[in-house]
């Protein structure tokens, strides 16, 4: 999510240059041949697959024989499938807990590391470094660290006479363990967005608040938080999109037994994949993809609405 995230951030912060690049018909015609490859790419890789997906969701299709129209049967079978609802519950859980935990930790570290200083630079780098570790190697390393009997973490807890856990092998802690791995890699990036936003809060506001006798909490509540609104909102949306599509971390943690232990990490995308490529139920998988698309569209619309209302810095 990092690259797209940053790209979008930059685009937003570009100063407006309205008027200069106004498209003229001649320019459009001249640009068209150059755009063709990309337009064709969008058609081949986005528009056509999307349309086919929607169509397949109303068919019984296994990749090998032509799809058969079945109407709403795929959707009906999903709504009667306990594993589908389990995957929805697992995903909602990780969206809520992961979203809140990521923002609290990212904002917390940003607030702590906002002031300049050598130690601060060190901690900022230390927290950000995990973001450069590739997801697959990160998860594989953590699977070893979290081994219940011989893992580093339980060994450490044991030396401190603290209780140890089954982590990824215990259905009651597997989701939290997975989240721990993800946040280890993601908090640095979230922190960075908040740090950037904190730097944009004018010092005058804090000075004025200090003169008025505002305490630390009041300053945070009345100045910092309202000024961070756009970034906060942005992080919420990114978290919802990221966690609702959660796939690779859970896949790498249990490649041969998706969703293990006991389906506790069977997230929506994982079950979609399982329907498509393990059970050959492409129609049912397409129906799941369409439902996810609807959900994402609603989340996007909610973001736009909230952004219109709260997206500007309240000051």
């Amino acid at each position, binding site marked *: 999510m990092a690259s797209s995230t940053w790209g979008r951030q930059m685009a937003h912060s570009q100063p407006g240059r309205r008027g200069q690049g106004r498209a003229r018909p001649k320019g459009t015609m*001249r640009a068209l*041949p*150059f755009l*063709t*490859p990309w337009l*064709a*790419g969008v058609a*081949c890789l986005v528009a056509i697959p999307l349309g086919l997906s929607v169509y397949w969701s109303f068919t019984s299709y*296994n*990749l*090998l*024989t032509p799809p058969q129209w079945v109407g709403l049967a795929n959707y009906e*079978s999903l709504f*009667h*499938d*306990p*594993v589908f609802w389990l995957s929805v519950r697992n995903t909602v859980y990780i969206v809520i807990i992961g979203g809140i935990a990521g923002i609290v930790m990212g904002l917390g570290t940003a607030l702590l590391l906002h002031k300049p200083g050598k130690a601060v630079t060190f901690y900022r780098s230390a927290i950000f470094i995990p973001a450069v570790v590739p997801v697959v190697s990160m998860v594989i390393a953590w699977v070893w660290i979290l*081994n*219940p*009997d*011989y893992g580093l973490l339980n060994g450490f807890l044991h030396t401190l006479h603290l209780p140890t856990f*089954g982590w990824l*092998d*215990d*259905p009651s802690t597997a989701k939290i363990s997975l989240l721990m791995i993800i946040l280890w890699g993601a908090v640095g990036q979230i922190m960075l967005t908040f740090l950037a936003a904190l730097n944009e809060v004018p010092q005058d506001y804090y000075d004025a608040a200090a003169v008025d006798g505002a305490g630390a909490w009041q300053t945070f509540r009345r100045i910092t938080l309202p000024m961070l609104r756009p970034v906060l909102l942005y992080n919420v949306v990114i978290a919802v999109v990221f966690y609702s599509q959660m796939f690779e971390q859970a896949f790498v943690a249990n490649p*041969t*037994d998706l*969703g*293990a*232990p*006991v*389906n506790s990490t069977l997230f929506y995308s994982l079950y979609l994949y*399982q329907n498509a*490529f*393990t*059970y*050959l*139920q492409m129609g049912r998988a397409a129906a799941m993809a369409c439902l996810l698309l609807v959900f994402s569209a609603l989340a996007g619309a909610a973001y736009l609405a909230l952004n219109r209302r709260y997206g500007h810095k309240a000051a």
Partner: protein
Amino acid sequence: MISTRRFLALGALTSTAIMLAACSSSPASNGNSSGVVQLTMWQQWGGGHEEAALQSAINQYERLHPNIHITQTPVTNDAKILSAIAGGDPPDIVDLGTSLELGAWATQGALTPLNSYVSASKLDLSQYVPDALKPVTVNGHVYALPFMDFTTGLLYNKKLFAAAGISQPPTTLEQLTADAKKLTIQAPNGKITQLGFDPSWPGPDQGQVCPLEPYGWLFGGQWYNSSSDKLTPTDPANVAALTWETDFVKQYGAQNIANFIASSGAYLTATDPFESGKLAMVYDGPWALAYIQANVPSLTSSIGVVGFPAPAADPQNTGTSFIDTNPQVIPRGAAHPQQAFDFIKWLTTDAQLASSFANLVANLPQLKNVPSFALQKNPGFDFFIQNGASDHVHVWPQLAVSSEYQTKLCQAQDSALFSQASPSQALASLTNLTP
């Protein structure tokens, strides 16, 4: 001097051409310009001594048929095979490690039905062990030729038995449960350092069947009713089997057993729980004997094999096992189906090859009559041969939903073992599946 307009047009053309070139695919070259037919085979034996055995069989075939050249590649990912078939560029032959996907693939048209090839080449199917043909037959059509069968039994570590003061392997399920208790060493904090038996090991994680499948048969249950064409997960005997499994696991704690397994090495290596001498009994197949011989030779003489014990009330079910084979299939759209069939026919009907291959990989010959081989003298292996020919062996139903049924069956099993659902609730969650 080139004009701007021309330059732009040229640029646009070039970029479009590059894109189109990148999108197009070049036809696969299975060239036979020299008169030699190139066959590709994707096999699921993997690497090591099993791949070497297959390669030597291929070499033998190529010597007999100089106009055929076969390239084998290990491809264990079923999704990859399926995408190759769906993409219209499949290998000529696929050696599947189990028949689990066969029902789904056959009913969905991914495989070439072999009936016409069988009759055209006058292949006598009665030379195969009858139970070996069941897993490769879907709706009365043969979709694969069987190669190297396998069944399971109870493997036990005599040294650990002696140390626990047990002189005989268990003959009833109740006795197995009691023996397992004596063979388990568990610390007060729940940590297990030695386990008598783990009813859910090795499961689908290790590429093996869901253990609940044979337990259902052990209790006299059925998973599919062919006359009514209905799945029967909630057959009372199946519920009884899962109840036994759940009660067994509860004695030690499902999580403690999971931790014990997670802390052991990979299956079929010297550090796997059974080979490392930490697990006293395992419900596994003849290949385990070969891996023990290769990884921990000193353990070989301490391993005994008996039929898996049945509940005292159902003694006739002792020795219950699934039977399966390595189906040799020809994907739909294969470039050389006839040559591919000729090869798999030879591979699966050459009696001498069946003997030597079985001897090398410790699987059971798929043919009724084969020359004797060294491994038959091993009493453990002999048990599997005898039991494979008995009526204690069962076949998982070959249906479009076979694979999904088995995967979800194991998920249901795990949810009961971890007390997330009662055994009957867990199995009832499968009733929305239809064959």
